[in-house]
């Protein structure tokens, strides 16, 4: 049993079967055509005007998306225009926001929905009780969510990965329980009669009413575009490089003089404010909110979206969020089996594409170089394997 292993000068404990499987996997991988790599190369080689044309095409497609003809294919058992706003649009926005925290800075946040809830309740309380206008509340909600991110992050971001996960998870629970038990949020009944954004009459896509969801979709689309542009700029700036360094190896980053705590806090606050904006928008469309709209499950779904799409890679995250939001609506007919199918999809996807549908480019390059990240024993075990493969 141990013979082939011994031939390679391996310790007897390492089973030969493992090595064989491992090599088999590597071979299979090599045979697959690298579509994404090809696309990435093509993108880099394309002229600047070509890249802009492609971006424009995506935006045009997004603008045309609410059309009935598309809706009949995409969501025959539901209302496509409505689900384009929620869940799809809102999930994409949340996904892009969580990607800053999880994908770029590498922190595991299981309570992201808390900031979404803070934004939503800001809109509800200020809109109903103070009669403020949506456009005034929007920055307010963003700032409030950012401050909560700061308050949560400042004491806890010194904690290592998984401890942060449980602390953020707890924060999400605390926000939901508090919203249920205090009176100014309406308790478990929540708040009803949340005002819509002010309309500009006679301009179809700017009149925010009850019946037509399209203006809200365009609003969330605009916000998504703004957030993506900002996130892209950040990613390519000094901040983005610092995040990448922290994500790959926090200790090394610290040693190289990166103020890791400050940059982690930045990522956390930026992520929180994006969720806050999404919350304000969600609240302004949906008229009534209750604490039940912000369950732990939502945090988990958005996290799945980010990881599924490819943490750290913006287009991947957008696609991931779209898929996670859209699939259950598309398969309404299978109502009883929806969650089961979703669960199985997560397992299968992660086994076959562990770095997401579209892995981030920086990560891809490290993959090719032979998996260098070694923060976890799992990684270390893999490293041992990688060494055993060497002749």
């Amino acid at each position: 049993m141990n013979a082939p292993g011994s031939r390679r000068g391996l310790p007897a404990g390492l089973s030969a079967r493992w090595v064989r499987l491992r090599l088999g996997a590597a071979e299979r991988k090599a045979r697959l055509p690298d579509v994404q790599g090809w696309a990435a190369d093509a993108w880099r080689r394309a002229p600047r005007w070509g890249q802009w044309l492609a971006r424009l095409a995506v935006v045009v497609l997004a603008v045309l998306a609410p059309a009935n003809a598309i809706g009949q294919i995409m969501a025959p058992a539901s209302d496509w225009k409505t689900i384009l706003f929620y869940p799809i649009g809102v999930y994409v926005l949340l996904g892009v926001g969580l990607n800053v925290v999880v994908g770029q800075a590498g922190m595991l946040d299981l309570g992201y929905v808390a900031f979404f809830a803070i934004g939503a309740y800001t809109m509800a309380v200020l809109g109903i009780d103070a009669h403020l206008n949506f456009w005034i509340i929007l920055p307010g909600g963003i700032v409030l969510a950012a401050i909560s991110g700061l308050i949560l992050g400042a004491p806890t971001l010194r904690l290592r990965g998984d401890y942060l996960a449980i602390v953020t998870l707890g924060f999400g629970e605390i926000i939901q329980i508090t919203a249920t038990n205090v009176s100014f949020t309406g308790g478990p009944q929540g708040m009803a009669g949340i005002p819509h954004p002010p309309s500009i009459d006679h301009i179809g896509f700017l009149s925010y009413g009850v019946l037509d969801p399209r203006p809200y979709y365009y609003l969330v689309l605009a916000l998504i575009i703004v957030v993506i542009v900002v996130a892209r700029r950040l990613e390519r700036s000094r901040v983005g490089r610092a995040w990448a360094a922290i994500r790959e190896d926090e200790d090394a980053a610290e040693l190289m003089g990166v103020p890791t705590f400050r940059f982690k806090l930045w990522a956390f606050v930026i992520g929180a404010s994006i969720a806050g904006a999404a919350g304000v928008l969600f609240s302004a469309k949906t008229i009534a909110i209750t604490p039940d709209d912000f369950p732990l499950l939502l945090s988990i779904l958005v996290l799945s979206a980010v990881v599924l799409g490819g943490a750290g890679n913006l287009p991947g995250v957008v696609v991931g969020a779209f898929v996670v939001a859209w699939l259950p609506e598309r398969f309404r007919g299978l109502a009883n089996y929806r969650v089961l199918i979703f669960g199985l999809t997560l397992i299968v996807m992660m086994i076959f594409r562990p770095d997401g549908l579209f892995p981030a480019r920086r990560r891809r390059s490290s993959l090719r170089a032979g998996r260098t990240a070694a923060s976890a024993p799992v990684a270390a075990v893999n490293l041992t394997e990688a060494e055993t493969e060497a002749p």
Partner: protein
Amino acid sequence: MLHQFLTLFWPSTVDGLTVGAIYALVALGYTLVYGVLQLINFAHSEVFMVGTFASLFTLHALGVTSALTGLALVGVLVVCALAGMTGSAVTAVILEAVAYRPLRRRTTSRLAALITAIGASFSLQEIFALRYGRDIQTFPRVMQKTVLFHVGSGTVRSDKVLVVATALAMMVILDTFVSRTRLGRGIRATAQDPRTAVLMGVNIDRVIVATFILGGLAAGVAATLYGTFYEVTQYNIGFLIGLKAFTAAVLGGIGNLRGALLGGFSLGLIENYGASLFGAEWMNVVAFVVLVAVLLFRPTGILGEQLARARA
């Protein structure tokens, strides 16, 4: 507020220790897997859930409909516990083989493993919901809940004693296993340094499977105790218990067996004391605030996180 706390001090202590014992047993599964793989086994809650169903079906199969005494009671409890342990351990092994092992060979990303764990958790819940319905399933009463004695105003009942005593016994057995046996040494070695462990001749695959089995066995015992104590189960029963147990594991120091015990009992007590001080609706908030406070002063939990150093 304080008056309420003082009146309820002894009942809260007794009940906090009882529920804490169950948290501690489930926390063991999180802690063992985390110690070896540094992975949050999010689906461990479902390992527990399957255990409750396994012992419920065993009760049905044995035809138990009313409370038993003496040898019959002991026999039925042991058979139920064995069934629960088998159900949970088998689930844990299947999980490891289907959801984690393929990933271990392919990626360094623990995030991916977390997502497969979430996927596995959803799938298991739904399979049980579709097969056995979404309503609660009730256990027949196996054991008479007789009052043994009072501690202050707290009542100590036979079933509470059973829960705490069994949990402690299970803890001692596991601790001895991990610290004394060859396989236990392998587990500790892998937890400390997997690379060196491989070089020293530890079969990592075997160690990992053993870790999942041990966690499953503890969860199975917890499931049987839960069934005899609360007499209900449901497809989603694991979620909240899992969340609490994971919190307990972190509180005590994840990756540390004795930390799981300490964390479980502490969390049970904190919850019940918190509820008597601020009202039951704030129970979870109190628990999480205490957790954050503990982590700020001891960033790796009360006892620290090394599984390998549990005996050092």
